[in-house]
C-alpha cells in the first residue's frame, strides 16, 4: 500500500511554512531530526494546559493524571518495539544518554581491564565516545568491524573478531551517513553464539521501519523520540529484564530510590531505578503521541514509501556529473543520500540549496571516523521520511544544478 503523502503532509504544520517569502520549505534533514505532527504538538500542549503536575509522588488529581499519562506513554513505546513489559523501557534524554547508561551502569559493573567491546567503523560519535571513555578509565579493549568500500559491514572480519572472546557488541542498526541497514538479527545471533551481549543503536532504524526486540533477541536498544516525529529531550533504553534488574543505578536522586538514609539508599525497582529527578514529562507524553501517530500510519507503509523515494533520489542524483554517492544501493539502505560534489565543499552546497528552501545537512554528521575511512572531510546529506515527496527530490536536484552554476 502506498502512503497518501499529501494527506500526511497536512498533519505537519511546519511543512506549510515558507523559509522566506515565496520560498517553500523542502525539508530533507529528517535524519538529524524529524518534523512533528499536530497530534504530538497538541498532546504536549494539552498536557501543560490541562494535566501538568509532578509524577509518582502526588496524590492529587493532576498528579494522578500526569503519572498515568507518563506511564501510558511508556506502555505505548513498549508495545511499539514489542517489549515483554513496559518496565524494560527506561526513559532517557535521547539515544546518546541510553548508550551512556549502558556504558556507565552495565559496563562498569561487568567489564574489567582487557575485556573486549566490538564496535563498527560506521558508528555515530554517540556510540564511540562513551566506549573510548571507558577504555581510557578501565582499560577495556575496543575493536571495530570494518566498513567495505560499498558501505557494508565486513562480516568475515566480524566473525574473526568474535573469536577473541568479546563481552559486548555495540553497533548501529542503520548508518546515519551511508544509510546502510545492518543485518542486526544475524549479527546479534553471532554475538550470542560467541558469548557476548549486544547493544543496538536504533536512533535511525526505529523511526523508519519495524524493530521488534523479541524477534531480534537484542539485549539493549537505544533510541530517541525526536527522530521519530516526537519531541527533543526524551529517548529510551530497552533492556532485557534480568540485565536491567542486576545493573546498578545510573544517576542518583529523587524517584530512583525506595528508601534513603543519611549514609545509604535502596534503589527503586525498574524502570524508576534509572530515572533520577523529575523527567521530561510533557516530552514523554509527546513521545507516546508520536508512537501513536507512526502506528496509525503503519511502519511497513512508511518503510516502503521511503524505499521508493530513496530509489528515485539515488537514480536522479547518479545522473548528475561530478556527484559521488556514498553507501550501498537502495535495497540495502534507508532514506539517506550522502554525496560529495567535485570542487564544492558541502557547506556551500547546503547554503545554496537553502536559497531555494531545500534543507539538507552538511558536515561529518557526527561520524568523523567514517568520513576518514572514505578519505573525505565532509559530505552533503539529504534524508527522507514519511512526508517526503518526489517533487522535493526534484527540488534537490534542481538546487544541485544551481550550485554547479555558481561554482562553474
Amino acid at each position: 500500500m502506498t502512503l497518501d503523502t499529501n494527506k500526511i503532509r497536512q498533519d505537519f504544520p511546519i511543512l506549510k511554512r515558507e523559509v522566506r517569502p515565496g520560498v517553500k520549505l523542502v525539508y530533507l534533514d529528517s535524519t538529524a531530526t524529524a518534523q512533528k505532527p499536530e497530534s504530538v504538538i497538541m498532546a504536549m500542549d494539552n498536557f501543560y494546559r490541562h494535566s501538568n503536575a509532578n509524577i509518582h509522588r502526588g496524590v492529587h488529581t493532576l498528579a494522578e493524571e500526569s503519572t498515568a499519562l507518563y506511564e501510558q506513554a511508556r506502555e505505548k513505546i513498549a508495545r511499539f518495539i514489542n517489549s515483554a513489559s513496559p518496565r524494560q523501557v527506561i526513559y532517557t534524554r535521547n539515544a546518546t544518554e541510553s548508550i551512556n547508561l549502558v556504558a556507565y551502569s552495565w559496563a562498569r559493573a561487568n567489564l574489567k581491564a582487557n575485556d573486549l567491546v566490538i564496535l563498527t567503523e560506521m558508528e555515530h560519535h554517540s556510540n564511540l565516545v562513551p566506549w573510548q571513555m571507558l577504555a581510557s578509565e578501565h582499560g577495556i579493549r575496543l575493536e571495530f568491524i570494518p566498513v567495505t568500500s560499498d558501505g557494508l559491514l565486513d562480516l568475515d572480519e566480524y566473525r574473526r573478531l568474535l573469536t577473541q572472546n568479546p563481552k559486548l557488541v555495540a553497533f548501529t542498526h542503520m548508518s546515519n551517513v551511508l544509510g546502510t541497514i545492518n543485518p542486526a538479527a544475524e549479527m546479534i545471533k553471532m554475538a550470542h553464539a560467541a558469548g557476548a551481549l549486544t547493544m543496538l543503536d536504533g536512533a535511525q532504524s526505529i523511526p523508519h521501519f519495524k524493530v521488534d526486540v523479541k524477534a531480534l533477541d537484542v539485549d539493549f536498544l537505544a533510541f530517541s523520540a525526536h527522530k521519530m516525529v516526537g519531541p527533543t529531550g526524551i529517548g529510551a533504553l530497552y533492556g532485557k529484564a534480568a540485565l536491567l534488574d542486576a545493573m546498578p543505578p545510573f544517576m542518583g536522586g529523587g524517584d530512583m530510590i525506595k528508601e534513603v538514609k543519611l549514609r545509604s539508599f535502596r534503589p527503586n525497582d525498574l524502570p524508576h531505578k534509572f530515572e533520577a529527578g523529575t523527567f521530561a514529562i510533557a516530552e514523554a507524553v509527546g513521545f507516546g503521541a508520536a508512537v501513536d501517530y507512526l502506528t496509525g500510519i503503519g511502519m511497513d507503509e512508511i518503510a516502503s514509501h521511503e524505499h521508493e523515494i530513496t530509489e528515485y533520489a539515488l537514480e536522479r542524483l547518479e545522473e548528475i556529473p561530478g556527484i559521488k554517492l556514498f553507501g550501498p544501493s537502495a535495497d540495502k539502505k534507508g532514506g539517506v543520500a550522502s554525496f560529495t560534489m567535485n570542487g564544492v565543499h558541502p557547506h556551500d552546497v547546503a547554503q545554496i540549496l537553502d536559497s531555494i528552501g531545500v534543507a539538507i545537512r552538511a558536515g561529518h554528521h557526527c561520524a568523523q571516523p567514517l568520513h576518514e575511512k572514505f578519505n573525505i572531510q565532509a559530505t552533503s546529506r539529504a534524508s527522507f521520511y514519511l512526508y517526503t515527496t518526489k517533487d522535493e527530490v526534484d527540488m534537490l536536484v534542481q538546487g544541485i544544478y544551481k550550485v554547479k552554476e555558481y561554482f562553474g
Partner: protein
Amino acid sequence: MDDLYREIIIEHYKNPSYRGNLDPNDISFADNNPLCGDHIEVNLCVDEQGKVSDARFNGHGCAISQASADLLMESIIGKSLDEIKRLTKQDILDLLGIELGPVRLKCALLSLKVLKAGVYGLGSASDDLLE
C-alpha cells in the same frame, strides 16, 4: 545568495593567491573547525621590525573559510604582529563584504582564530581571539 557567493569569494576560493607553505617560517599554526572539520594552517615570515614579510595558508574547507583565509593573508602582509593581535571579527567581515549567520560566521573566522593563536603562541584557537 548572490551576496554570499559574491564573485570575489568564488574567485579567492577557486584561485587563491596565498595558498601554500613558507619554509622556513617564523610562525606556523594550524587548527580545525570542529563543526565541519574545516582545517586551516597559517605560516608567517616576520622581519626584524616585527612586521609580516610574507604569509601563506593551507587547508581545506568551504568557499567562505578558504576565501576569507586568502583575503586575510593578503591583508596582513606589511602589518606588525601588534596590529594583527588587534584584528577582530569585523575586520574579516569587512574583507568579505557580506553578512553572515552564526553558523557560517564560524567558517569565515577560522583563519583569524588560527592566525591570532599563532601570533600569541597559544596552544589552540579559541573564540576569545575574535573580539
